[in-house]
Structure formats: structure tokens, C-alpha cells
């Protein structure tokens, strides 16, 4: 029997039991839709994080943080607000000068002091991360450190403060509740004294940053406030810093690697040196784990669908015993009977997978729209789902594959039916 005839015959069997075929297909549709939605969202998320990372940290930068990690890739430990890791190792503000002398490939080194604290002005009082940075250098390293309202002075006053976008506009609706020139109290809880006490000073708002987005290491944050490094030094009473950003003259891998080694040597392996490249590969490995996990869960639902297909095919095989007997009496070969039953599963798998892919894609886009609308908080989460050809073809193949594999046994049983036995059944 010719292939189109086989498929035509399979199709006529499916058409007869539309509801049953539809319900069987539904299992495949749901499984495939889940896989496609989850993968296209995570891939979109990865793309958007990578994108923000690239925006937030240029390829010729390195981040140094306390934390003895020779590889500088795995197990990043980020000790926000302490300036020291558990071993008691500290990065000092004075280290920047030493780092700048390590290699001619190093353009500049920028220290960042980072503490949790509060800002208060009028009836506003909110928790923020306070960053002490050199405004001019910081703006050079991070293009996102630029004001949409007000200015970021190159030589700031001691009490100058720059606000992240959500500090000035907590409702994220374009209404800034703070105007340039306003005074606000900056406050932190000093736990080095006994008893711990609140330290505070009055700062004057000079600029508000544009919206940055949710991610980025060391870079400007929507919920951060920025004060001059020297102010932070005296306000927090410290000569250590939490992070040093090194800018290189170029982003060649060789340069990045050699400078990374020089820095590790200099600090005797007690720092973590993070390059955008390394971050990228950490991200990739995190995301491939997430994808494997989510995809795996969705794949299980598809296996459940497969068991459903098998169940239905066995029922259908029993119902159609006499039909199989007739086909065999007409001279149909065993392998053609097999092909007819497998053909039904291919049609169900193919249609289910295609509808599932479309459904999953729609679902991913709806999810992205909902996330972007900010209903669930978490900042403006610009996320464009990505459906790669690999995912598309993989989902298609998986849907058809699962259907066919679970149909193999019933189809095989149908093909092996003895004609006389099949014909006795009425």
C-alpha cells in the first residue's frame, strides 16, 4: 500500500472519532505548549539578562570582590555591605592605586563602597542601597550612570546625592515625588559601635538616573542612591571597599586573562575576579540547568500524554479487531497494518505538537506582557520570548516521537493479529 493511501486510511479512522482524537491530542498539546512556553520564556529571559549585563558592564571591565576564588567563575560570593568575606580579607580603597600599577593594560581602577541604609524626605522613608563611588569614573564604566533629570557633577559637593529611578518615582508612573535640589536625610545603622546607633546626614539631590532594569553587577540600580566616595568613606567610617571595577585598555581575551592572573597574584588568591565573559558562561550554565529542569518537568507531562495515547490505541485496536481481520483478508501485510496504526499516532502527534507550539508561543507572549505590565512587581521586566528553530523542531520531533513510541506496542499487536482470530470477533 502506498504511503499517501496509508495516511489517508489512518486519517479516516481519526476523523471518525473526532472527540476521542481531540482529547488524545490535548495531552500532546498541553505537554508541548508547556515545553515551548517555558523554554521560550527562559530563553527570552536569558537574552534580556545577557543584554542588560552587556549594557551594564562593558567587555573591557573586571570586577574584583573579596572572596578567595581562584577560578573567578563558579561560586561567586557577593558580600554586600560588609567589605569583608568570612576569612577577614578586606579590599582597601588604597588598593586601587596599586592595581592601576599592575599592568599597562589597566586603564583605571574604581572602588565602590556599598551599604544598606535609608533615605528620608518629608513623608518618604525607604530602604535603599547606598553606593559610594567616584562619579566621573563610574559614569565612564557604566553608561547607564547618567541623569534623565538634573545632572551628575564631575566634581560633586560633599552632600551631593544621585537617585536611582525608583527612588524618585516609586510608582513607576512618571511622577517624580522628589525634585532636584531637595534635601533628604541619608541614614544607616552603625553596628560597629556598642550599642549600635543610627548615623545620618543631610544630602542634596542633584540628579535622577534613567530606568536601568533589574540586573547588572556593580552597575547602577533603580533602587540605589549614589554619594561621592569620600563622603561614603567618612560617613561609614571605613577605609575598605566592597568592590573594585577595573577598566582595561582593550577586551582581548589574552589581556583579560593576564590581568586577571596579575590581580589574583597580587591578592594571593583571596579575591574573586569576574569578567563579563566569565559571568556570561555562569549565566549560560545557570540557564541551561533551569531549562533542563523546566523542560524536564514539561516533558513528564508529555509522557503522561503518551500513556494516554497508548491507552486509546489499545481500546481502538480492540474495537477494530474485525476491521483488521478484513484488511488482512484483503491481502494487507502485517507491516502495513502497523503503518496504519503508527500513521494515526503520527497524525495525532504532529497536529498536537503544531497546535501545542502555537499555544505555547501565545502563552509565552501573554506571560511576557503580564510581567512587563508590572502586575506582579519586580520592576519593568522587559522580556521578549524567544522561539529558536531548535526548540521548534525539537518540540515537533518530541511530540511526534512520544506519540509514535507509545503507539508502537498497540500497533505491533494489531499487526500480529491472526486473520482468522480477528474475523471471528464481531
Amino acid at each position: 500500500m502506498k504511503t499517501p493511501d496509508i495516511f489517508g486510511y489512518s486519517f479516516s479512522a481519526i476523523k471518525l472519532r473526532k472527540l476521542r482524537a481531540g482529547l488524545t491530542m490535548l495531552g500532546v498539546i498541553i505537554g508541548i505548549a508547556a515545553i515551548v512556553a517555558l523554554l521560550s520564556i527562559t530563553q527570552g529571559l536569558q537574552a534580556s539578562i545577557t543584554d542588560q549585563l552587556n549594557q551594564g558592564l562593558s567587555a573591557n571591565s573586571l570586577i574584583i570582590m573579596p572572596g578567595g576564588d581562584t577560578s573567578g567563575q563558579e561560586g561567586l560570593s557577593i558580600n554586600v555591605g560588609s567589605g569583608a568575606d568570612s576569612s577577614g580579607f578586606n579590599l582597601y580603597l588604597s588598593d586601587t592605586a596599586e592595581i592601576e600599577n599592575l599592568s599597562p593594560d589597566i586603564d583605571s581602577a574604581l572602588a565602590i563602597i556599598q551599604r544598606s541604609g535609608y533615605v528620608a524626605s518629608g513623608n518618604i522613608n525607604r530602604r535603599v542601597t547606598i553606593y559610594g563611588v567616584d562619579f566621573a569614573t563610574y559614569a565612564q564604566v557604566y553608561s547607564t550612570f547618567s541623569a534623565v533629570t538634573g545632572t551628575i557633577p564631575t566634581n560633586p559637593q560633599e552632600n551631593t546625592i544621585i537617585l536611582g529611578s525608583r527612588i524618585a518615582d516609586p510608582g513607576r508612573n512618571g511622577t517624580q515625588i522628589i525634585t532636584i535640589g531637595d534635601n533628604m536625610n541619608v541614614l544607616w545603622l552603625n553596628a560597629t559601635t556598642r550599642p549600635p546607633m543610627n548615623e545620618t546626614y543631610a544630602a542634596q539631590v542633584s540628579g535622577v538616573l534613567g530606568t536601568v532594569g533589574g540586573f547588572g553587577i556593580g552597575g547602577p540600580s533603580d533602587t540605589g542612591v549614589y554619594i561621592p566616595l569620600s563622603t561614603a568613606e567618612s560617613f561609614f567610617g571605613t577605609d575598605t571597599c566592597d568592590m573594585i571595577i577595573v577598566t582595561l585598555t582593550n577586551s582581548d581575551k589574552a589581556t583579560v586573562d593576564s590581568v586577571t592572573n596579575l590581580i589574583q597574584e597580587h591578592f594571593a588568591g583571596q579575591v574573586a575576579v569576574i569578567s563579563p565573559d566569565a559571568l556570561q558562561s555562569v549565566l549560560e550554565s545557570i540557564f541551561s540547568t533551569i531549562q533542563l529542569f523546566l523542560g524536564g518537568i514539561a516533558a513528564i507531562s508529555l509522557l503522561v500524554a503518551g500513556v494516554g495515547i497508548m491507552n486509546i490505541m489499545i481500546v481502538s485496536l480492540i474495537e477494530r479487531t474485525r476491521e483488521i481481520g478484513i484488511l488482512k483478508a484483503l491481502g494487507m501485510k502485517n507491516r502495513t497494518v502497523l503503518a496504519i496504526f503508527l500513521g494515526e499516532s503520527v497524525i495525532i502527534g504532529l497536529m498536537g505538537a503544531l497546535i501545542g507550539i502555537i499555544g505555547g508561543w501565545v502563552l509565552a507572549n501573554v506571560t511576557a506582557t503580564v510581567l512587563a505590565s508590572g502586575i506582579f512587581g519586580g520592576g519593568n521586566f522587559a522580556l521578549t520570548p524567544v522561539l529558536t528553530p531548535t526548540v521548534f523542531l525539537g518540540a515537533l520531533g518530541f511530540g511526534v516521537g512520544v506519540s509514535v513510541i507509545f503507539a508502537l506496542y498497540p500497533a505491533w499487536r494489531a499487526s500480529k493479529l491472526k486473520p482468522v482470530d480477528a474475523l471471528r470477533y464481531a
Partner: protein
Amino acid sequence: MSTIIEAIDLKKTYMLGKIPVEALRGVNLKVDTGDFISILGPSGSGKSTMLNLLGALDKPTSGTLLIDGVDISKLGDNQLSELRLKIGFVFQFFNLIPRLTAKANVELAMSIANMNRTEHNKRTLELLETVGLKDRINHKPAELSGGQQQRVAIARALANNPKFLLLDEPTGNVDSKTAKEVMTLIHTLNKENGVSIIMVTHDQKLANEARRTVQMFDGEIQSDTVN
């Protein structure tokens, strides 16, 4: 005249659990091309068992059965299927695929035999005209009477120009008037188209219309007479 079927000491034993049921106990039969044989006998005498063997739907337990010169005991599943393409089979009832129209049922036999697609249409119409159902080609079995269904089954059995036609109580399920129509068709096919026919029946009158009547009893042939 050449021999198309030759059965020598044919035996068929079914196992009902551990109890052997001897459905055929040594049958000898020779059928020539163009013949019209009726097999008569009470229920359970082994008529269907015999016909199933002649139709290569089953293999004998012992003995030799040559169909078109081939010993079917030696054939595998695939070769048996190919042999069945040369045999037209009509059962007592439920011959047709319920979801397919009369035309599609006939065409199905042709596509199983890989007959050239361009011939399907013309030949199907000819066959349905031969059995007098030209105006029912797009009807599904449920929309046809019992006699009409049997005639579609006969048209389908003829689709691949079989060497012979096997009919297992083709009129067992229809009223006497329809039975007559079907019998007339069978006679016409035999006389005018030269189709060899072996027909099982338990109706003495219909059996006598054949050229030769084989009487079966308890798995054996009791008599084999030319009418």
C-alpha cells in the same frame, strides 16, 4: 481445465484451552478453474474452517493445501498476504469498513494491491455497476440494505481479478428475496465472467444451484456430487 485448489488429507485442530477440537479430520478436495462448488453442512461441521484454509487466512494442522500450485504450509505471513490478493473473500456479515463509502471500500482493496491509482476510479464504477449499485457509490454501509452490503462486498472481492471467489454464507443474513438477487449475481459472475466460485451455505436449495455440491459432516466430506 486447470486445478486452482488441491487439498490432500487436510486436518485442522483448534485448541480450546487444553482440549483439542478437530474441526477438519482429513479432507480431500480438488477445484478446477471456472467451477462453481457449494459446501453444505450443519452448523459446526467445519465449513468455515475449510473456507478459511482455502482463503489462506489460516494454516492447516496437517495435510497439504495447494492454492494456485503453492503449498501454503510453507508460506510466511507476508507471502500469505500476497496470496490473499489473488483470492476474493465474502463473509456472512460485517464485510465492509463502516466508515468508508461503497466506492472507498472497493478502492481500498485496490490500493492494498498497489493497483495503479488512475485505474481505481474507472474499475470501481464498473464493478459497482456489475453488482447493480451504480447509484449507491457514495453510500456508507449503514445506509445500505443487507443485500446491497453483500453486493458491495462481492464487488470488492472482485476488485483485484481474483483466481477464485470464496463466499461464507453470503445470503445467511438477508431475506429470501435479496438472497435470490445475490445468487443471481453469483451465477452471472460464474457463467459470464468465468469466475471460479466456492460458496458455503446451509440452504439445500441454494446449494443445488451450484455445479457441484460438497456435503460436510463433523469435519469430513460425506459426499461430493455434480448436480
